[in-house]
């Protein structure tokens, strides 16, 4: 026992090049060593902070203005984060003041597209990625003919995905594109999600939407996300449908991952 180290390392820790999973952590007795224990606590703390952070709507609006987008502000019927977390139904509806404020004047035009930016479960994701992604998307759509008629962009606090249905209908938009902060994972506190819905109105189901998930530089980078969403937008506009009937068949962008020698439990290299 005197020769046994206090912390027993795991020689297979090098296999972490094959997976983001927390393998080969070693052990003190049968418990976690201090460093991986605190690594986990830090990741959880960051995810928790992301969930409870409130959206800096003023800064977001200023950045959207710089892209040439006019912004309207809205709030869901969930008054605060505590209610939001327990009442998803309230997060899907506008509060009365927002519903009135978004009502367009008479004889307003129809729009091809309303972009709705929602804090969701990670305002951090919205603050970091919504504007640069949108810049990439607008560039990708710039040469389309006929040009895209965009409604004012709406920034929503305490919202869920389906709040875009009410907003899109109110603004007379044929399509609504919701950018929303996804539920933070331990290693991804800032994933942005995208949901495209045709003929938006309250009552639309998830089967009527197309989704692109995990938009962030460490996940799906902006150029690839913009490429895929521009493809979906063009298809949705020309075929007038979204959801399970519209399969994402956009040509893939070459993977950035380099070659990794493969590992198998049956003799080192995979025999496939």
């Amino acid at each position, binding site marked *: 026992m005197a020769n046994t180290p206090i912390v027993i390392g795991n020689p297979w820790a090098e296999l972490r090049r094959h997976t983001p999973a927390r393998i080969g952590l070693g052990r003190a007795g049968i*418990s976690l060593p201090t460093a991986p224990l605190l690594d986990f606590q830090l990741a959880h703390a960051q995810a928790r902070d992301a969930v409870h952070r409130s959206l800096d709507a003023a800064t977001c609006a200023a950045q959207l203005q710089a892209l040439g987008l006019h912004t309207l502000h809205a709030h869901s019927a969930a008054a605060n984060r505590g209610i939001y977390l327990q009442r998803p139904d309230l997060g899907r509806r506008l509060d009365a003041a927002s519903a009135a404020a978004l009502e367009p004047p008479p004889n307003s035009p129809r729009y091809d597209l309303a972009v709705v930016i929602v804090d969701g479960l990670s305002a951090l994701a919205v603050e970091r990625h919504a504007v640069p992604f949108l810049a990439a998307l607008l560039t990708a759509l710039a040469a389309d003919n006929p040009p895209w008629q965009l409604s004012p962009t709406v920034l929503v606090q305490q919202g869920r995905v389906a709040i875009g249905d009410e907003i899109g209908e109110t603004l007379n938009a044929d399509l609504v594109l919701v950018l929303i902060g996804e539920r933070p994972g331990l290693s991804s506190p800032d994933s942005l999600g995208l949901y495209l819905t045709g003929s938006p109105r309250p009552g639309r189901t998830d089967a009527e939407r197309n989704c692109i998930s995990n938009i962030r530089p460490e996940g799906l980078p902006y150029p690839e996300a913009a490429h895929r969403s521009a493809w979906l937008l063009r298809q949705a506009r020309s075929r007038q449908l979204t959801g399970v009937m519209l399969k994402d068949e956009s040509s893939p962008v070459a993977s950035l991952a380099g070659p990794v020698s493969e*590992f198998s439990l049956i003799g080192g290299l995979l025999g496939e």
Partner: protein
Amino acid sequence: MARYQQRIGMRTYVFDDLAMLMAHASPERSGDHLAGVAADSAEARVAAQLALAELPLARLLEDLVVPYEIDEVTRLIIDNHDAVAFAPVAGLSVGQFREWLLSDHADSTSLAALAPGLTPEMVAAVSKIMRNQDLIAVARKCQVQTRFRGTIGLPGRLSTRLQPNHPTDDASGIAASTLDGLLYGSGDAVIGINPATDNLPQVIRLLQLLDGVIQHYNIPTQSCVLTHVTNTLHAIERGAPVDLVFQSIGGTERTNRSFGIDLALLAEARAAALSLQRGSVFADDGQRGEHVMYFETGQGSALSANGHHGCDQQTIEARAYAVARHFKPLLVNTVVGFIGPEYLYDGKQIIRAGLEDHFCAKLLGLPMGCDICYTNHAEADQNDMDVLLTLLGVAGCSFIMGIPGSDDVMLNYQTTSFHDALYLRRVLGLRPAPEFEAWLENVGLFAVGSGGSQPLAQLPPRFAQLLADTSGNL
């Protein structure tokens, strides 16, 4: 509709029907508020518990929370009720039933004999007037054993599901997490992957990968890819090595329809898996292990499918166990904290629900485990999971999850780690399934030490060589 009432001081509380009485008696949780069925005050909740305690158990066979005519789960519960098995408690009220369960009349033999006489509504009702320690004390007396290639649920044993998930189902990544788990003594309940997609060729590839590992190392365990039951049926048709059929199930016909299943489909899948005869023949009784189903459940799934029929989420959850027991599963677990804070808000609610689910399932005769888990938007953390883990260990939980460092990098939630299982085994003197424990010792990963088998500091030559070969290939 029967009306129930309870007088407290000057006030009389009225409950319109049994579903409302059960819902108001349920310990507080966010999902029942979301459904609009929760008691609106603390006193109203206890009033309902007082009225429920007076209710004759047998009444629950006649006053049905989900109508017989419109729900095949209700029909399964009523049509399969065993009146002879029910006889010892048939004359008791719900409150007296609690006392019977805690008394020395109830031991592992009498509880096993009683199980076919109990309905989900009976066990849900009694759980609502039990404290956490009652749920633990009674569950600990239940013994449920199942077999495929090892024996799950023996007294003094705790099994684990090794869950080597990877965000893109990368074969090397899954192999790396599987190795990590095996070297930490995890995987005697099942090696089970949640695939990133339901793509059938991918599912078959994963089944072949796990089968290859189990055969190569001759591990007395079973594999499972947790895909939809129809996918597994197709995989069996294409000759894939399927050990266990997985499916998420709920407590009403409408909930199950939202999962794309019904009872007939589950029966078809079970028959297909049995036809493969992949279980071991055990030396002690000469019988083949024929428990081929693996089910997951969780409070709140019925409401999210709009299939709750005005019931509280814990009662509907218990009804899912009637579905499970009809198909003689090897493993069942509640994924207790996965669904999120709109159903179970914080650590306190998750802990309570985990103990309730384990108690109800064990009383109904199921090999019950628990995915002790939480998401990042719930008011919960690792300390809450340590509490539930320890309590479920004391309660005799059949199995828990095992994942590298508690972090599921595919499903983005936190569950118990390989280290957590070793902690629980060490502090409570629990051991893995006997066949798996013998394998760990035979291959030189574990050795008998104080308090049972413990991991060795030195890797045995076979695994050291595997790592050396891998490094050499870089």
